[in-house]
């Protein structure tokens, strides 16, 4: 039995320095995470990893994000929820440098930073899995994984074999059945494409990870694997923004929840302080429950 597992062609030893061990070692997944319960941080314990303050952006007349503020602490997963078109993707795209905000400030580790383009964001250790995946369809998985930061040979040319070898390792962790390393990603299934996008985001020692519906196209096994991955990355001290419409997943994985509606933040709550119904009320009606801190988008209570 064990023998046939060893035969898997992707598990061949690789003669390169073990790159990014933080990302590669998954096998003894720490169940410790559960014990780390008090990490649900309060503003008191330290500076947030990321703080977006009073962010606004409008497209034409539409205020896609309207004076929204969110923050994220190291080792924390913050779930971002809201109806379709609530402004979740737009808000995180401002953080990832894809959009330029009209108003507001971004702080990383308490320092104000300029994020004018995706390069700036990556320089701050912010990696993003976009809802649209943002893959170059005509090149293969390795080319996508390393796009913008290719491995080079000593001569300065692309080291395609080394990139493929690394890609095989990362992909094996996310999607062990994946074999199609030579094909352009346009030929892959939706879930396989999503795995490539996830691999790209976790491969470069991110400090801050943005996941915009990372499991929308994944099968149950792969989704569970991404869940494990999130827990592990969190244990390693990353901060993660998780956007998802799946309340179960969000409750399972997040420490705090932020709900948006029509571009505004309805409220923020510790996951343990609210119920599914509370959150549904926030999403649908903008009703801020007891356990949550209301934001500018909260429905005014008719007392």
């Amino acid at each position: 039995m064990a023998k046939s597992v060893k035969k898997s062609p992707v598990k061949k030893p690789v003669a390169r320095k073990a790159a990014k061990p933080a990302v590669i070692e998954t096998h003894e997944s720490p169940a410790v995470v559960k014990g780390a319960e008090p990490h649900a941080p309060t503003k008191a314990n330290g500076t947030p990893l990321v703080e977006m303050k009073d962010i606004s952006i409008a497209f034409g007349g539409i205020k896609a994000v309207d004076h929204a503020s969110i923050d994220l602490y190291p080792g924390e997963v913050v779930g971002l929820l809201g109806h379709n078109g609530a402004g979740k993707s737009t808000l995180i795209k401002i953080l990832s440098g894809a959009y330029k905000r009209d108003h507001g400030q971004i702080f990383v580790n308490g320092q104000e930073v300029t994020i004018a383009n995706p390069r700036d964001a990556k320089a701050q250790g912010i990696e993003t899995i976009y809802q649209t995946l943002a893959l170059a369809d005509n090149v293969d998985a390795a080319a996508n994984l390393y796009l913008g930061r290719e491995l080079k040979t000593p001569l300065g040319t692309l080291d395609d074999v080394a990139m493929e070898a690394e890609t095989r390792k990362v992909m094996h962790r996310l999607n062990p059945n994946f074999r199609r390393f030579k094909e352009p990603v346009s030929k892959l299934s939706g879930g396989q494409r999503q795995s490539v996008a996830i691999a790209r985001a976790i491969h470069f020692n991110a400090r801050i990870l943005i996941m915009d519906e990372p499991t929308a196209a994944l099968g149950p096994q792969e989704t569970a694997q991404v869940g494990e991955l999130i827990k592990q990355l969190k244990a390693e001290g990353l901060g993660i923004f998780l956007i998802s419409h799946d309340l179960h997943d969000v409750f399972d994985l997040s420490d705090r929840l932020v709900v948006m509606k029509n571009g505004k933040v309805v409220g923020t709550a510790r996951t343990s302080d609210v119920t599914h119904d509370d959150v549904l009320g926030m999403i649908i009606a903008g009703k801020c429950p007891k356990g949550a801190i209301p934001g500018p988008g909260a429905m005014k209570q008719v007392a």
Partner: protein
Amino acid sequence: MSIPSASSQNPALDNEGAVKRFFRATEIDTRMLGMIAALVLIWCIFDVWSGLHLHNNLVGEWFQGVISGSDGLLGGTFLTPRNIWTLLVQTSSIAVMASGMVLLIVMRQLDLSVGSMLSLVAVASGVLQVYQLGPSLGVGHPAIWLLAIALCLVLGTGIGAVNGTLTAYAKIPAFIVTLGGLIAYKGIAFYLASGETVAPMDQRFEVFGGGVQQSWLGPFWSWMLGLLVCAGIIFAIVNGRRQRRRFNFPLRPVWAEVFLGLMGSAIVLGLTNVMNSYPWPYNLIANYAKDHNVTIPPGVENRDGNAICMAGDQIVHCTNGLIYYTGYSLPVLVALGVGIVMSFIAARTSFGRYIYATGGNPEAAELSGINTKWLTVKVFALMGLLVGISSVISSARLNAATNALGASNELYVIAATVIGGTSLAGGVGTIYGAMLGALVMQSIISGMSLLNLPAAYQDIVVGGVLVLAVWLDQIYSRRVK
């Protein structure tokens, strides 16, 4: 027994046919193979057709010609060393530009201004040589050709960068920017020389056109070069194999590697042989002999062959005389060199990778941190540089620069690129495909002029071939998908 056998791991491989297995193992691009087949077909048709022409459509006599081998490969005037040699020289300028147009179109851009740009650059360099440097440095001064070429390259790159900047940063569609360029650059070219033909070019500059004996490599160095390229092919294959072994990746079967090495070498050496079979024109041989005190052997007048000998005091063709062969000519070498460098850039550098990725999904490329605007400027500038190179070849070949030198070149360049399999939707295209496309087009043009068909027919056929090629390509890709 729980260990699966090698074949059952990949059931798809078991029941595929020999042909399919061959293509999978060798990783030969079947689309390119189709193009080569089309090219060979075109060549054969023209040779047979011109052969029939030669013999007044008498099939019997034509057949005699084929058997005796006195004419082209199939009895005509097309598949002769002389014609192939000329064909390659004629193709080089368009082929050089097509290699850059591929990258632009892959990136979802387009440059309609290359023809006018070529005229402008050529006229500017002509004016510099003939009206400025000639009088001031003295005609034939060795600095002239260097400065003239430098001007071509710098000016081309600069104009390309302007096109790119307007496209990327001012966000004007490339179609509009370069359509404006098409019109405007032609105007500037006219203005620079008041519409006159600037001639003659500097003597050393002229070497780049392939029309003078200094631009011919000669058989010895042609063979050396051919062998060097063969060595390069073998090195690339061995090195690729070593690289893949380093990471324990699946390797191509050895027979496939050997086949590829032999095939590549055979093509290179075959081409070298053809180039080395084209003799100098006899009057050049006579002049050379006179200048270098080589005695021209006496001979008998003979219709066959191209050598030179004296019959009385008359210079005639004969077989037993003095003969020199041209070998590769400089413009062809430049084009081949450009092709190799551009293919390398496209496949092996991050610059090339970014171009393809941007063409596949511009938004994804931007989100990956690629500065796509600056990339656009660089690719347009590269296109301009290549136009600069082509302008040297074209004006040197004509030994003159006119504001009509590059007329319609943009159409031929784009047509060559598209015939070569580059998709206008972006993301897909190869350098060698575009260069082969240029060769296909030039073959049709020169084949038809060999048959003395009116020039109008050439345009009609080239246009038709362009549309046909894209149609066939679409059928092909639909079947492959």
